[in-house]
Structures are given as C-alpha cells and as structure tokens.
C-alpha cells in the first residue's frame, strides 16, 4: 500500500515538474525544475530497488550535468530571452500536434504491437547487494561496452574543451 502511494506521488511530481521545465519563462528556473525532477526520478529508482543507479542519477545527472547547463546559462548571459520577440514563422501549435502524433504512435505500438512471453506482475526480490551485482555485470558480461563508454567520455571531454576554447 505504501508502495502504491509512493509511486503515485512520485509520478505526479515527476510529470508536474517536467511540464514546468518546458514552460518556464526563465531558463534558470527551467533548470532548477529539472534538478527537482531528477531528484524525484532518483526516488523512483529507490522504490524500484535500484539503489546504485539512484545515487548515480543524483551524483552524475543532477549534480554534474545540470551544473554544466547552469554554468553555460550564466556565461551566455542574455539581455532578452529568445521568447521575447514575436516570430511570425513560429508554429507552436504545429509542434504540439506533431508531439501528439508521436504519442499516438506509442499508444498504437503498445496496444497492437507484439507482446512477448508474459512477465510476472510481481516484481522485485532484487538482492541487497545491488552494487556488487551491477559491478560484477559491468566487469564480466559487459566489459566491452564499459570500456567503450570510458573512451566515449574521454572523447567528449576533449571535444568540449576544444569547442569551448577562445582560439584553437
């Protein structure tokens, strides 16, 4: 019963703050709502017994990536935000309509797509030794993707440094 209440509260907060992110007037407010959103998503992960990913979400996503965004917003200190001038070519309604098409596509796939062998409605039972098992998988079964991910991060770091320099 508590699990149900937690899920509904967390989902309401996640979706509510997501809407606030995309409709915020000021970019910094949008970023702050995004941080709150990520914290609630981390709470959802704890509910799903994924403690390691929850902490990584807070540490990397909320505490690293979004700080990057905040830094850039402060360095790009604009006098008037882009939304301030009216643009005749703006077709906001068309954007929402296209998004509804995407949503309809998802619903179609969910309703009429191929359904694999049934998954038990009872979930959970994941071990308390969550970190050990995730680490074991990363280093044995999925070692190659792990190494590739570290190369990707190295390349991204070099790329970001080169792109943001004043002179090459």
């Amino acid at each position, binding site marked *: 019963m508590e699990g*149900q209440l937690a899920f509904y509260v967390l989902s309401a907060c996640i979706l509510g703050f997501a809407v606030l992110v*995309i409709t915020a007037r000021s*970019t910094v407010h949008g970023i702050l709502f995004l941080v709150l959103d990520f914290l609630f998503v981390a709470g959802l992960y704890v509910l799903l017994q*994924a403690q390691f990913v929850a902490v*990584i979400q807070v540490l990397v996503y909320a505490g690293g990536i979004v700080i990057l965004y905040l830094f*850039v917003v402060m360095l*790009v200190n604009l006098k008037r935000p882009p939304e301030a001038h009216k643009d005749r*070519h703006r077709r906001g309604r068309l954007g929402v309509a296209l*998004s509804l098409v995407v949503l309809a596509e998802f619903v179609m796939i969910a309703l009429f797509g191929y359904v694999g062998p049934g998954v038990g409605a009872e979930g959970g039972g994941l071990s308390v030794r969550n970190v050990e098992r995730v680490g074991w998988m990363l280093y044995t079964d999925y070692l190659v993707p792990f190494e590739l991910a570290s190369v990707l991060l190295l390349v991204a770091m070099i790329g970001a440094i080169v*792109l943001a320099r004043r002179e090459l």
Partner: protein
Amino acid sequence: MITQTHYLVLSTALFFIGVVGVMTRRNVIVILLSIELMLNAVNINLIAFSYYLKSEIGQVFAIFVICVAAAEAAVGLGIILAFYRNKETVNIDEMNLMRW
C-alpha cells in the same frame, strides 16, 4: 498493485513532455533540457523492467545511458558556447548558417 504498465505509461508521458519541449521552445538550452527529459523517460523504463524481470541488466544499461547523456551534454554545450561567441544568440531559429 503497481504493474509494469504503470511505469510504461509514466515513461511515455514523460517522453511526450520532452518531445513537446523540443518541438515548441526556441531557446536551444531548453531544447537540450527536454532531450534530457526524454533520456530520463527511457531510463525509467529500463529500471522498471529490470525490477519486473528480476535482473540487473536494465540497471547496467541505464548507467550507460547516463554516460552517453553526460557526453552529449558536454559536447552540446560546447557547441552552443562556440556558436554564441560568433552570433550572440541562443535562438534556434537563427542558427541557420548551413542553410542555403
């Protein structure tokens, strides 16, 4: 009883909100934020299925998604900074240097 359908609906709704954000906002930073929302929707899906299939594979995949999101955010913001230095705008409609 919370089944995986609940989580599917939640992640679809979050993904939809991200798509609306990408299609309607003009500020390129808000567009990147909406992309992060979409990535989070995918992550929620992966973790939910890891829970219901009783295996940690979904969590491992979610960690890789977070890595890729970090790399993409860093490079994307570098591009925005470089563009801002040249054109003094973050309005995506004015980022049309490659249009003929």
